[in-house]
Every structure is written in structure tokens, then in C-alpha cells.
């Protein structure tokens, strides 16, 4: 049924590969000089007074937008290339015979690198279940894949720094692994719609897709075009709101509302975050500005994870294959995980 896909290119080392490599040093040069360039533009050329609130906000915007966009292009490009080495079919093969814990860990890690779109959640779910991947392991994948994605990584890295980006990735991974493990232990298989198991077993031996390096670079460019084209407007708007908060909202304004002392702030953030999925790119810059105004790290982290990881549209899509008790267990287990992460960080940091 599957055709052998052999895409060859005449020149292995074409311009497609050389041009990005030549541009890389210039990228770094520009990236690390960006703050000086911004200072020059805002204080030098535009001659803003560096005491005024508006100057603060404008400096923030003029600096953050190109910085985040540069990071976005580079990271989406690199991730796009890395993803060409993975596919749902290969991931399924790897996860097939794995035991529960090892399976959950592998599923979480593979969830980060396997190309995934929430619109394909159903065929992927069925494909996994039919191939004998345990339900809990499948969920570890379905939780990690959207939660740890390149756009979130870029925004965290650009706006919060690498420490918080790393904390986000590792706690996200822990949540995906342990939630999947819990779901596996709860023995919820009976709440998968019956027709999933009744479907004819389709055993396909897919041929290894042979891609040249220049094909892979092409796919990296495609990823940049697609993802940057989709999210840039949210990022610019988000940073604009963030800049306004940065300039005009007084220090410690958020402490009462999203501070560590307000115990209810963590569960409330998680609840608020669930319906906000589509605007994750715009929400993160706003949240970053709030963190500066006294919101606590745990609350902010819980809010982001809920916005990015628990998405209403994906849950609705999954309803086609899962009965309500399983949907609820899935949302509840992940929400509890996120809330725990929020409290742990509020308590220790």
C-alpha cells in the first residue's frame, strides 16, 4: 500500500544548505548586539528621555520583538530539521513493546521531537492503540507533544531566560510521564470508544523515507514559513501588551493577585488557562510582564502550562474516541500535576 518515497537531489551540498550556514554567524552577531542597537535607536536616534514610563515601554517593545522573532526563526528552523528524523510511524514502532514506566518516559521524550498537530490527534491515538501501545503510554505522548513545543520554548527562552525555559521543559516532561503512568494504572481502557478496537487492523510496513540533507533543510524552511506566519501577529500583540504593563503597571501590583501568598491563585490560573490555547503565543509575553510586577513563578508556570498543555479544542477532538470519564480523568490528572508544580515552585522559590 505504501510507495517507496525516494526523494533525491542532484547536489547534496546545494545553496539551500550553504546560505543558512553562512548566515548563522551574522545571526549571533546581531542577536548579541541587539540591546546596544536598541539603546542607540531609542535613546540616540529617537531621542527619548530615559526617565519616562513611555520610554521604558517603547524600549521593551523595540528590543523584545526583533529578539523573539530572531529566536523564533532560528529555533523553528532547527526543530523543523530535527523533526524530519522522526515520524509518528517510527515513534509507534519504538513504543510498541515498551513496559509501563520505560514506555511513559520514552513517550514523553518522543512527544517533544515527533511532528505532531492536534488536528491529527485522533488518527495518531488510534494508530498507537491498535499497534498495542498501552493507553497510559499513549497519553504520555499526547500530553508532552503539545505542551513542549518550539514556539513556547522560543518565548520562554527569549523573555524569561534559559533557566525558566529549562524548568518548564523538565517539569512539563515530568507531568507528561507521571500523568500517563497514573492514567495507565487507573485501567481506563473500557472508556475508549468501542469502535476503536473494532476497526480493522491495518498493518502497514511503511518504507523508510529517504531524504537528502537539502530536503531536510527545505522542510526546515517550510516549518519557519508555516509557524512564523501563523504566530508572529500574536507575539507582536502580546509583546505590545507586555510592554504597556512593563512601563505603566506599578511594581508589586500583581503580588496580591498572583503572588505566592494567594493560595487560590494556582488553581485559578490553571482553570483560566484551559480555554486560552490558541493564543499561547500572545499570552506568554503578557505573563512575563506580570511576573516582573510581583506575580510568583509557580503561579506563572502553572498558568503557562495550562494555556499550552491543556487545550479545550484538543480535548473536544479526543471526545470522538474517548468516553467522558476518560476525558475527565485525563484533564483532572494533568491539571493536578500542573497545580502541584505551581505550589512546589511557589513554596521553594
Amino acid at each position, binding site marked *: 500500500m505504501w*510507495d517507496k518515497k525516494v526523494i533525491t537531489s542532484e547536489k547534496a551540498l546545494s545553496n539551500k544548505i550553504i546560505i543558512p550556514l553562512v548566515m548563522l554567524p551574522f545571526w549571533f552577531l546581531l542577536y548579541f548586539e541587539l540591546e546596544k542597537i536598541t539603546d542607540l535607536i531609542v535613546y540616540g536616534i529617537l531621542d527619548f528621555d530615559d526617565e519616562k514610563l513611555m520610554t521604558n515601554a517603547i524600549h521593551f517593545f523595540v528590543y523584545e520583538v526583533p529578539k523573539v522573532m530572531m529566536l523564533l526563526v532560528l529555533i523553528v528552523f532547527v526543530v523543523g530539521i530535527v523533526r524530519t528524523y522522526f515520524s*509518528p*510511524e517510527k515513534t509507534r514502532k519504538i513504543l510498541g513493546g515498551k513496559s509501563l514506566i520505560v514506555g511513559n518516559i520514552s513517550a514523553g521524550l518522543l512527544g517533544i521531537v515527533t*511532528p505532531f*498537530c492536534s*488536528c*491529527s490527534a485522533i488518527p495518531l491515538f488510534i494508530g498507537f492503540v491498535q499497534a498495542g501501545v498501552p493507553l497510559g503510554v499513549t497519553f504520555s505522548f499526547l500530553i508532552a507533544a503539545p505542551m513542549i513545543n518550539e514556539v513556547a520554548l522560543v518565548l520562554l527562552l527569549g523573555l524569561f531566560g534559559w533557566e525558566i525555559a529549562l524548568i518548564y521543559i523538565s517539569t512539563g516532561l515530568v507531568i507528561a510521564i507521571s500523568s500517563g503512568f497514573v492514567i495507565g494504572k487507573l485501567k481506563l481502557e473500557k472508556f475508549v470508544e468501542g469502535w476503536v478496537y473494532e476497526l480493522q487492523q*491495518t498493518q502497514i510496513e511503511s518504507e523508510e523515507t529517504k531524504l537528502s540533507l537539502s530536503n531536510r533543510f527545505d*522542510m526546515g524552511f517550510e516549518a519557519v514559513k508555516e509557524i512564523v506566519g501563523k504566530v508572529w501577529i500574536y507575539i507582536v500583540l502580546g509583546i505590545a501588551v507586555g510592554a504597556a504593563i512593563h512601563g505603566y503597571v506599578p511594581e508589586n501590583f500583581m503580588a496580591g493577585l498572583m503572588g505566592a501568598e494567594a493560595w487560590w491563585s494556582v488553581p485559578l490560573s490553571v482553570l483560566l488557562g484551559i480555554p486560552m490555547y490558541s493564543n499561547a503565543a500572545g499570552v506568554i509575553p503578557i505573563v512575563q510582564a506580570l511576573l516582573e510586577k510581583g506575580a510568583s513563578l509557580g503561579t506563572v508556570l502553572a498558568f503557562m502550562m495550562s494555556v499550552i498543555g491543556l487545550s479545550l479544542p484538543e480535548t473536544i477532538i479526543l471526545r470522538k474516541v474517548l468516553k467522558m470519564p476518560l476525558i475527565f480523568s485525563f484533564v483532572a490528572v494533568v491539571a493536578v500535576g500542573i497545580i502541584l508544580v505551581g505550589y512546589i515552585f511557589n513554596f521553594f522559590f
Partner: protein
Amino acid sequence: MTVKILGTGCKKCKTLESKVRELVDQNNLNVNVEKVTDIKDMLKYGIMSTPALVIDEKVKSVGVIPNDNQIIEWIKGERI
């Protein structure tokens, strides 16, 4: 000959469908273009991501939008 596009309502799926229709018209290829949206029908082909392009019941691409020349080549290739 039938060219099927398997896909739910996602944006990429719609893009691929209109692209294939356009290419078929432009190149006067005498083929039926069909969109398959029913999940159960889609799964018969064993795909795990959408959109998928199926030409004469053979899965040609999964999860990506192939480039124009590739699509034309596939359609012409299957006819011979």
C-alpha cells in the same frame, strides 16, 4: 483514476485539497479528486497524521504538503 485527500478540517488539509484541484485543472489531468473526511475511512489507509495524499489507493504522502512538481509527477507516474 482517483486522487484522494485524507484530512479533517485542519488548515493544511484544506490547503492540500485546493492545491491538488488547482494542479489537476491547470495541467488538464483527467482524474477525480476526492476529499475523505470520515475518520474510519481514513484509518483504512493506516495513516497517523493528516493531510495524506492517496493516488490510486496508494498512500503517497502523510502529514505534509508535497510540492507541486512532486504531486504532478505522482499523478502522471501512476497512469503509465
